[in-house]
């Protein structure tokens, strides 16, 4: 089966005060129909930039695709015209954003905001689009959709707004759904509901999902493949189960150790919460020929600080970009 989306050696450059920085450096990935791929990593690692690049929505004059290809069904989106991208966006590839509170337009009813995308891509009439919007609200489990359809965003909670965003994104049954930290702004109880919804509806429409998240639990539950990003580079990638069970890259190990565990018996002595010391290097250092994680890594040696590590293959598709990945398992 051919890949639905194939990203080859993608490089995204961002204009900053200190000059041009590669926020994404030599990223490759493949996404197959119906599959869920997860991006994990700290903030500022370039996860959202990758998503925006696939959508062709990199901020004007600030970011640009400087190299590589983004092949969707063989068509290079990085060089496609804006008109062509407008046909794909919201139709073949759609996206859910991090901030449900501000992602809906406050001055239009949610029905209009759902119906709009149906009229745009499926040439439905006003009436047909409106009744499809009601169906979609029902599908994203908003109670009493018949009357809620003419509500405005400010009349809904954050969780409900994110459901509306999902309805908009899935309205045209896209081949790829990109979800950029869709639950970060929501209550924990609502988070699980949103993930359930995405998984169920994604399965129904056969959409492949790219899930960007901090939430290792969500990754384990939702995704088949994962990519761990660090400072714009791929640190580790592979099947979710394999990577979580035997992470090779010290950064992946750190991320997994950071997930706090609920203890059945609470004692006076609370275990120390694990953390990864230090912070992601600043953008201007992103282009350096070294392992960018070296400054935070307990295993780093001179090689790590003088040469960028290539990806080492550990079988079953698991690849880790770490000089010492073989020893520190």
């Amino acid at each position: 089966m051919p890949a639905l989306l194939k990203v080859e050696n993608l490089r995204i450059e961002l204009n900053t005060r200190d000059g041009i920085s590669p926020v994404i450096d030599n990223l490759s990935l493949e996404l197959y129909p119906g599959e869920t791929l997860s991006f994990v990593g700290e903030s500022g690692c370039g996860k959202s930039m990758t998503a925006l690049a696939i959508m062709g929505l990199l901020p004007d004059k600030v970011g640009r695709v400087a190299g590589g290809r983004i092949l969707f069904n063989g068509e290079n989106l990085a060089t496609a015209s804006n008109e062509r991208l407008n046909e794909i966006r919201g139709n073949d590839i759609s996206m859910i954003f991090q901030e449900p509170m501000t992602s809906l337009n406050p001055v239009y009813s949610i029905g209009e905001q759902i119906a709009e995308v149906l009229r745009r891509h499926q040439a439905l009439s006003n009436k047909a689009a409106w009744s499809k919007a009601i169906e979609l609200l029902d599908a994203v489990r908003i109670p009493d959709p018949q009357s809620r359809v003419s509500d405005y965003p400010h009349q809904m909670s954050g969780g409900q707004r994110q459901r509306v965003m999902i309805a908009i994104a899935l309205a045209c049954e896209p081949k790829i759904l990109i979800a950029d930290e869709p639950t970060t702004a929501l209550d924990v109880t609502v988070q699980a509901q949103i993930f359930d919804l995405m998984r169920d509806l994604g399965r129904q429409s056969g959409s492949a999902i790219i899930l960007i998240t901090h939430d290792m639990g969500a990754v384990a539950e939702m995704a088949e493949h994962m990519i761990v990003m660090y400072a714009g580079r791929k640190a580790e990638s592979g099947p979710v189960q394999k990577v979580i069970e035997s992470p090779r890259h010290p950064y992946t190990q750190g991320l997994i150790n950071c997930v706090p565990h609920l203890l059945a018996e609470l004692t006076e002595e609370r275990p120390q919460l694990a953390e990864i010391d230090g912070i992601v290097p600043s953008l201007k250092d992103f282009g350096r020929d070294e392992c960018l994680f070296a400054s935070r890594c307990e295993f780093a040696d001179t090689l790590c600080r003088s040469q960028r590590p290539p990806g080492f293959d550990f079988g079953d598709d698991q690849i880790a970009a770490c000089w010492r990945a073989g020893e520190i398992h």
Partner: protein
Amino acid sequence: MAILRATATRVVYAVILLLAVLVLNFTMMHMAPGDVADTIAQSMGGADAEIMEQIRKDYGLDQPFPVQLGTYIGKVVHFDLGYSFFYNQPVVKLILERLPATLLLVISAQLIAIILGVVLGVISARNPNGLASHFVTGLALFGYAAPVFWTGILFLILFSLKLGWFPTSGMRDVTTTGGWFAEALDIAHHAVLPVFTLCSIYLALYSRTCRSSMLEVLGSDYVRTAKAKGLSASQVVYKHALKNAVSPVITLAGLQLSAVISGAVLVETVFSWPGLGTLAFQSIIARDTPTILGILFFSALVVIVGNLLTDLALRIVDPRVRSKQ
């Protein structure tokens, strides 16, 4: 239904506000030196103390202040604003004669300033470093800095005296013949310079405001959502962004309405436009108290009605305002 109730509440507030304006105006005019007796005596060519006393008694000026105020308010409620001794006409008639000319000036200037301001604001926000954007910035600088009467005089010199495109003063040409259409055309011809003069300050203000609110909205999350839906650039800008960006402009336009009316006094004087502004100017010079009070009352009325309309416009544009009440 909700809109009716909200409007009714607003109207009640407006009436209370209008009453407060009446009391304040009357008190201020009372505190100012000189009264109607002085005006009458002046027009008679002088009078001795006894006659002055008689005049004051005839017009109730010898009564204590609260009684005078009560009488005045009682009359205003019956839409009687008194009699102008300077023009020898009832004030209401005088004002109603002049009001249409001022409304024409003020409303056209506001509308043109809002529409042009929004258009310029949108164009410059879409390309913040382009030519149009610099034009808006320059225009704003000029609009803020130049006093409106001076702009008017500059326009007069260039467009009337040098180029001869527009008449220098007045509202009508007495020699105009033909039906109502020719007459309307004549008035429009006379109105161009005063309207654009009055418009100049507010155009600057509105285009700046629209530019900055549009820039903010264009960077918002919901505009990104609109782009992610695959909508065309013009749909994103004119459907999704503009409706959000005009709210501050509408609010500002409502607030500026009073300033537009005071600007009209200057512009009408420069262009001898036969409106309330010229009337206000002349009656202040002539110390024609009833007329001044009447004009203040009408200006307050126009501002209050204008603010009501602003609220209604905001309710139409923004559903969040609707559900707040």
